[in-house]
């Protein structure tokens, strides 16, 4: 699928997040796949200016983002709320090294969740990030998504802050489990 058709088939707010990445000169997009990030991942793969990096676990993305910054590039990490738990010790690198950080987290286990196994980490996601010194922003509505992401990118890469933007499960859309 080419860039134009990718942009045309996604909800507008997802495309607006990718445009915010481009406007902030993001050059590396690392991710553990999630359905809620699939448009961004497709756009990153198709973009010649961006290195897309598929991870085996989210903590690799934390270290990768620090390496990118050392070399003068801006990296973002895309993950699902369960992935935040995988990152906890690696997040200490951000504070110990004084690195900027931006993660985009799709939420599970908080709104219309069918799978009880998603709930414990979903409930703990924001607190786990905050315990490790990450500032948490949240986008719950389509019309605010691009603004919140842009604000988070500015705080990370202009002020050097460590930021996670949570995309609410009500925004991403809860999975339809019952097949008709």
């Amino acid at each position: 699928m080419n860039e134009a058709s990718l942009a045309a088939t996604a909800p507008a707010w997802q495309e607006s997040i990718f445009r915010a990445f481009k406007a902030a000169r993001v050059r590396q997009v690392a991710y553990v796949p999630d359905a809620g990030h699939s448009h961004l991942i497709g756009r990153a793969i198709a973009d010649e200016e961006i290195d897309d990096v598929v991870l085996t676990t989210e903590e690799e993305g934390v270290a990768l983002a620090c390496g990118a910054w050392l070399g003068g590039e801006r990296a973002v990490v895309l993950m699902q709320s369960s992935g935040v738990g995988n990152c906890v010790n690696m997040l200490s690198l951000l504070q110990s090294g004084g690195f900027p950080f931006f993660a985009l987290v799709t939420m599970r286990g908080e709104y219309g969740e069918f799978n009880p196994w998603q709930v414990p980490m979903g409930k703990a996601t924001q607190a786990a990030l905050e315990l490790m010194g990450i500032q948490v922003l949240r986008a719950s509505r389509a019309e605010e998504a691009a603004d919140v992401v842009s604000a988070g990118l500015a705080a990370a890469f202009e002020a050097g802050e460590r930021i996670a933007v949570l995309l609410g499960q009500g925004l991403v859309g809860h999975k339809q489990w019952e097949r008709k």
Partner: protein
Amino acid sequence: MGAEVSAAATKRAERREFVAALLARIPQALVVSGLGSPTYDVFAAGDRDRNYYLWGAMGGAASLGLGLALSRPDRSVVVVTGDGEQLMGLGSLATIGAKRPRNLTIVVLDNGHYGETGMQRSHSSLGLDFVAVARGCGIAEAFATGDCADCDAIARRIDARAGTTFVRVLIEANQPPRALAPRDGPYVKNRFRSALGIEPL
């Protein structure tokens, strides 16, 4: 390259000697060191503003090196880490194998033990084959050595930036005196970026 390096890697190198010999041959390379003894080894070879020393973030050295290598394709990036640190980030070899930047080399100093915590055996003493793992992850240029004489060939490969490379260095399970690299992370980060001509925020 494989043919240039000793085929039978049964010899074991002295870790400080090997790291010093390799780094002396690649003065322009950007170097990331994994926590524990590899950080001491890299610092003992001579402090450089193009070294980034890790004192924590166990399992993250190779991933950090990947982000750095992607950001600076014009420079050779060398990660020097230990078997225990690489084992904690074993999946990062799969991530690197999927991306294969031409300018990234991972050097695992393998004594088969967790040296910092009392020399307990690691998986590489218990059957794990790092070279097979690296190859299985898609890093075709993966080999073992235990001989400082191979540093010339390895350094040429690093300078050529001709493909992702993985080197398992068999070393003696001993502990040279600690050489304390700076622990001030922001200082090391800012010094590193400054050496690359990157402006501060």
